[in-house]
C-alpha cells in the first residue's frame, strides 16, 4: 500500500551520510544470481568486480552477495547493500528487475545498474550485452561441424534474451547447412549442474553431436566430454578447461571495461541513467579462442566475428520469416533493437513451440 515512511526517512539520512563518506572511498555492490565459482555468467561478473578493485585500488571498496534468489529475497539483499552505504549497485540478473526498481525508489542518492532489464529511473540504468552476435559465430561452427545434422540447445528460460540466442544460432547454422535441426530443452534455471547435465544427456540420446547452452555451468561440456565426438561452446565464460575439445570456442562476457567506466563516472559525479547494449564491436562480447576445428571452419568463424564487429554483417538481416511463415524482415531489412528486446517467437524452420 505505502512504502514504509520510516525506512524512507532513515534511508535519506543514511543516503546523506553515505554521500559524505563517499569522498574517501567509493563503495560498489554487486548482486549475483549464481555462485561466483559457477565458471560462467556470475564468474564473469565477479571478474568485472575484481577488475574494478584492481583499477581503482584504495579509492574503491567492493562488496557482493552471491546466489541471491530472484524474488522477495533479492529486495532485501539490495536494500542491505544500500543501507550499508554503497554508492553504486549492480544487480546482474533479469529477475532482479522489480526488486531493483523498488529499492532504487527508496534510495534516491544511490545509483543502480540492472543487467538485461528494461525498467529505468533517474538513479537506475540498464545494461546488457549483445550475446546473440556471438551466437551467430557459434551457429556457423555448429552448422559446419555437425554430422548428424542434429544440434542440441539448452535454454535457461524462454525469455527474449534466450530466444534471440536460439534464433541467431539457427539462422547462422542453417545458412551453412540447410539440413540442420534444432532440439531445444528448457532447464528453467540459470545454474544447476545436475539439471544441465541431464539436459545434455537427453540431447545426446536424441542424436545431437553439437550442444549449445544458455545456462551457466560447465556440466554440459563435462557430459559431452564423456560421450566423446561431441562439441560444445563456453557460455558467458571461456570454460577453457574443456579446451581444445569438446569446447571449441566460447562467448565471453567482458563486463570489466563497463564497470570501470561507470564507477569512474560515479567518482566524477557525471553518472547518468541510460541503457547500454554492447556487442563484439565494443568488446563487451568476446569470442574465445577457436580450438580443435579444421582450418577452414576456424577461418570462416573468425571472418564472421570480424564482420559483425565492423558492422558489415547483422545477425538478423532479412529476409526472415517467423515460425508460422508470416514475414518478419524483408530483404535488406535488419531487426530493430526494440524487436530484439521483445522477441518471443522462433524463426521459420525451428521445430517446437516457445513454452507458454
Amino acid at each position, binding site marked *: 500500500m*505505502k512504502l514504509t515512511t520510516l525506512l524512507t526517512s532513515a534511508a535519506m539520512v543514511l543516503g546523506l551520510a553515505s554521500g559524505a563518506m563517499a569522498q574517501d572511498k567509493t563503495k560498489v555492490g554487486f548482486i549475483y544470481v549464481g555462485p561466483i565459482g559457477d565458471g560462467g555468467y556470475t564468474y564473469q561478473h565477479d571478474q568485472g568486480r575484481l577488475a574494478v578493485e584492481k583499477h581503482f585500488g584504495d579509492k574503491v571498496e567492493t562488496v557482493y552477495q552471491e546466489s541471491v534468489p530472484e524474488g522477495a529475497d533479492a529486495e*532485501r539483499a539490495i536494500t542491505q547493500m544500500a543501507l550499508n552505504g554503497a554508492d553504486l549497485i549492480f544487480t546482474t540478473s533479469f529477475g532482479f528487475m*522489480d526488486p531493483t526498481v523498488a529499492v532504487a525508489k527508496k534510495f534516491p542518492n544511490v545509483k543502480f545498474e540492472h543487467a538485461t532489464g528494461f525498467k529505468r529511473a533517474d538513479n537506475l540504468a540498464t545494461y546488457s550485452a549483445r550475446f546473440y552476435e556471438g551466437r551467430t559465430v557459434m551457429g556457423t561452427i555448429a552448422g559446419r561441424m555437425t554430422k548428424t545434422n542434429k544440434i542440441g540447445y539448452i535454454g535457461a528460460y524462454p525469455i527474449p534474451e534466450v530466444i534471440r540466442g536460439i534464433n541467431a544460432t539457427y539462422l547462422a547454422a542453417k545458412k551453412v547447412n540447410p539440413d540442420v535441426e534444432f532440439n531445444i530443452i528448457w532447464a528453467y534455471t540459470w545454474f544447476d549442474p545436475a539439471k544441465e547435465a541431464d539436459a545434455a544427456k537427453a540431447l545426446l540420446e536424441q542424436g545431437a553431436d553439437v550442444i549449445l547452452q544458455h545456462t551457466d555451468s560447465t556440466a554440459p561440456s563435462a557430459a559431452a566430454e564423456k560421450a566423446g565426438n561431441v562439441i560444445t561452446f563456453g557460455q558467458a565464460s571461456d570454460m577453457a578447461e574443456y579446451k581444445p575439445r569438446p569446447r571449441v570456442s566460447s562467448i565471453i562476457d567482458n563486463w570489466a571495461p563497463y564497470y570501470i567506466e561507470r564507477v569512474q563516472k560515479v567518482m566524477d559525479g557525471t553518472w547518468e541513467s541510460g541503457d547500454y547494449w554492447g556487442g563484439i564491436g565494443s568488446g563487451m562480447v568476446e569470442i574465445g579462442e577457436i580450438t580443435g576445428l579444421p582450418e577452414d571452419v576456424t577461418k570462416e568463424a573468425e571472418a564472421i566475428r570480424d564482420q559483425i564487429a565492423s558492422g558489415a554483417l547483422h545477425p538478423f538481416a532479412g529476409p526472415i520469416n517467423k515460425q508460422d511463415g508470416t514475414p518478419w524482415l524483408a530483404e535488406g531489412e535488419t531487426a530493430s533493437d526494440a524487436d530484439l528486446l521483445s522477441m518471443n517467437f522462433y524463426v521459420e524452420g525451428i521445430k517446437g513451440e516457445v513454452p507458454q
Partner: protein
Amino acid sequence: MIVLEKRPQPSRFWSYATPVAAVLATMVFGGLLFAALGKNPAVAIGTIFWDPLFGEFAFYYRPQILVKGAPLVLIAIGLSLGFRAGIWNIGAEGQYIMGAIAGAGVGLAFYPLEAWYIFPLMVLGGALGGWAWAMIPAVLKVRFGTNEILVSLMLVYVAEQLLASMSLGLMRNPEGHGFPGSRNLQQYESAHNGELIAGSGMHWGVAAAFIAVIFAYVLLNRHMLGFHIRLTGEAPRAARFAGVRPSRLILFCLGVSGALAGLAGLFEVAGPAGQITIDFNIGYGFTAIIVAFLGRLHPVGILLAGGLMALTYIGGEIAQGNLGLPAAAIQVFQGMLLFFLLALDILTNYRIRPRKSEVA
C-alpha cells in the same frame, strides 16, 4: 568408555536445554569454520545473531525476520498436525505454489478494478488452491491406499511446471515486453498484501501465522479432534478403540496443512514477492518440515523455531554482504544448527554414563 542408557522418562530438563546447547555448539563449530575461512569468528557470529536484532540497521532487519519467518511458521503449523498423527505431507511446497497461483489468479482476474472485497476473495482462493492440491494425495490415500509421502512430493514438481506455464502463458503481464512473470500485485492497491503498520513488517501473513499458532495450540490441548490426532500418532490401536476414523483424520490433516501452505503462498505472492514468476517458490515448503521438527511439533516451539530459522537467514545474508562470507558457508552453518539439534536430542531420551570397567 561411555555408554548411552535409556532414561525411564524423557528428561524435562534436556528437552528445554538441547535447543540452547545446539545453538551454543553451532556457534563454537561455526566459529571454527569461519576462522578457517580467515574471518574473525566472534565478529561473524555476532553479525549473524546480533546484527539483525540489535545492529545499526535493526529497524530494517527486525521486520524482515517476521516477513521471512511467517510463511515458515504458517506452513509448519499445518504440517505438525499431520506429523503428530503419522500423516506425512511432504508436498507443502506444491500446495504453497498452488495457493499463490489460485490467489493471484483471483486478484489478476479483477484487474484493474479497485474494491475492498478483492483481497478477502484472494485469501479464500489461496486457501482453496492449497487445500485442493493437498486433497489429491488425501483422497488417493483414503480411496486407494496410496502413499501420501510420494504423491504429495511428486505433486510439487507438477505444481512447479504449472507455475512456469502460468508465468509464461496465462498470467504473463501483457505489458511486460514478452518477459515471463505476472503483473506486480504490489502495484495493484486492492490486491496488495502490504504492511499493516508501516515499517513493522507485519502483513496479513504474519498475522495469520500468529493466529494459526494459537488455534493449533487450542486444538491440540483443548479439543477432541486434537486429542484424536495425538492419540493416532502415539497409540494407533488405542485410537481405533477410541472411535477415531482414520480416513476423516487423513482428510482433515492434509486439508488443513494444504490450506495453510496455500495461504502462505498467497500472502507471499501478494506481498513480499509481488509476482507470479518461474522462480517464485524458494523452498519454504521444505524448510517448514525442518521448522516443524525443530519446534518439536509443538505450536509454540514452531513459532520459536521459525523465528530462529528466519534469524539465521537474515543474519547469514548480512554476514555475506558485510564480511564477504561465501553463501555456501552460511548454508553449512545452518546445517550445523539442525545437525546439533537432532544430535543433542539424544540427551532427552538417553543419559551418558561412563562404562563400568569389565574384565577383558
